[in-house]
């Protein structure tokens, strides 16, 4: 983890409601694992005052640059779009948090994402591909143009199933596709991000097949590096959900096992 002033390489419209910010940050990029995040500050700003946390979308092959895919939501993301243009420095802290675990012997994995949650998954797909692991993607969003990065998952050769709420042809939900595929394919692990409903369904499936499943979580943060105790969520301390406790998303997460967070 370090704080760095990363030169902005580009910051352009990605698709739908999403923008893609790329910065030059070799030491952060080199250390990053899929699922980890960075915390970005609008420099010298009192409003927004806090940093804004974002999953790393991808790292370039040379591991010198990192990308963040973000949705314009409020004042912080609006100013990210306006002020973080080439020539500017992006004040970021990273890598932060605990990333996804890809079991050593995994052969096939499922990546399940909804909306902006998809943005946490491309780097994991890249790692899987590099390790020769096949990843199949199950992506949903409110509208077709918000299916961020579908082409990345496709480029690694796995199957990509999509569902857009606004597309009448998309009768099957991504979970329908997943359930169907799971009947014939032995997934070694599953990863999910972006919807509590998806987390519950993935957890159920993972339990049924006795495989690990993980989910990246979100919570409002003050520091992002584990010091303020601000970003807790309630988690299951055991698989039966009998005892509960608080865990910091920025420190113990953002990646949790689905049994920790499903129905918690």
């Amino acid at each position, binding site marked *: 983890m370090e704080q760095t002033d990363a030169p902005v390489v580009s910051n352009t419209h990605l698709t739908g409601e999403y923008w893609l910010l790329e910065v030059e940050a070799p030491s952060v990029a080199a250390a990053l694992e899929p699922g980890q995040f960075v915390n970005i500050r609008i420099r010298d700003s009192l409003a927004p*005052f*806090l*940093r804004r946390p974002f999953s790393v979308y991808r790292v370039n092959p040379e591991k010198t640059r990192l990308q963040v895919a973000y949705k314009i939501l409020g004042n912080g993301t609006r100013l990210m779009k306006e002020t973080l243009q080439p020539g500017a420095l992006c004040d970021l802290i990273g890598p932060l948090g605990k990333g996804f675990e890809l079991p050593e012997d995994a052969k096939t994995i499922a990546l399940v994402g909804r909306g902006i949650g998809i943005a946490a998954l491309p780097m994991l797909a890249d790692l899987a591909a590099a390790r020769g692991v096949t990843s199949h993607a199950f992506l949903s969003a409110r509208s077709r143009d918000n299916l961020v990065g579908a082409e990345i998952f496709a480029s690694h050769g796995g199957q990509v199933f999509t569902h857009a709420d606004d597309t009448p042809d998309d009768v099957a939900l991504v979970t329908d596709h997943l359930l169907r595929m799971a009947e014939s394919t032995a997934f070694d692990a599953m990863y999910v991000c972006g919807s509590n409903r998806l987390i519950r369904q993935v957890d159920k499936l993972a339990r049924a097949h006795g495989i690990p499943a993980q989910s990246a979580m979100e919570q409002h943060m003050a520091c992002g590096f584990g*010091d*303020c105790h601000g970003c807790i*969520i309630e988690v299951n301390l055991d698989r039966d959900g009998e005892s509960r406790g*608080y865990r910091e998303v920025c420190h113990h997460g953002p990646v949790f096992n689905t049994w920790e967070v499903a129905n918690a």
Partner: protein
Amino acid sequence: MPDLSITIAGIEMKNPLTVGSGTYGHHGRFSQFFPVETMGALVPKTIRPHQWPGNPPQRVLEVPAGLHSSVGIPSIPWDQFETEDAPRLKALNLPVIQSVIGRTEDEYAEVVRRCTDLDAFAGLELNLSCPNLKQGGLDFGYDPDAAYRLVSRAREQTDLPLIAKLAPDYSSLVPVAQAIEAAGADAVALVNAPRAMCIDADTLKPMIGNGVGALSGPAIKPMAVYMVWTLYRAISLPIFGMGGVATYRDVIEFMAAGASAVAFGTVSYVDPMALPRALRELEAWMAQNGIDDVEQLVGAAHDADFERPQSRRVA
């Protein structure tokens, strides 16, 4: 080279910069940003004598120029504090002032005694004022009699320098500080974050899990400076000043108001390098302005002929 060292309540600080309890965390993460020995003294997060999970989510929320939070002072089990944290803190090469809290006079006395026994600390800070707790320091901190009893009890338990940390409150500020002084405290720290609430216009319910939370950050600085200025005129004790500090100019502002040491709080979450940068800039500013001893800044905003009151300490 200007002299930045300052002795406050018998604690020798090589510079007047420190951190607000709870804003420079347990996990030692900050040492990845800058060496902890950069600062003059370390104030770790308040510890309770008993384990406590803290408040439910959501705990933090951005507000204009500040942070609205209600963490609730989660505390690890005492054993763990004793075997893990205390030795690590003791090993640091700077004075560590441990902040403590209890729910009753007895609990305060107990945690003061236990911390003293650990033989790890340069001083103890009594958190009289945490605004995040349904019970806890609040009553003590707003009531001169209760504050007097509490500090007296703590005083009996320890020979360590005792610092009482106050919440911002206009009417009780001076009487409480005078009571604390009389009871034998060695310094005061202020301000703790004022109580606050944000209500979601969509749900019509409070946005923070605990309902009530605190307000910290630059938004509160002008109130905090006023309170430091006021106490400088009302009591003889040295002051740890804080509330929205972000730059070396804020350090100067608090010192001129009357603080001998200045703490960085919420700003460290957004700008973890704020303290070391301010230290460099303070030193450069002193050199440039021909101020060779940082003590010259303490109380500089008061009239030259103003003299602080005599000690009220009861023998």
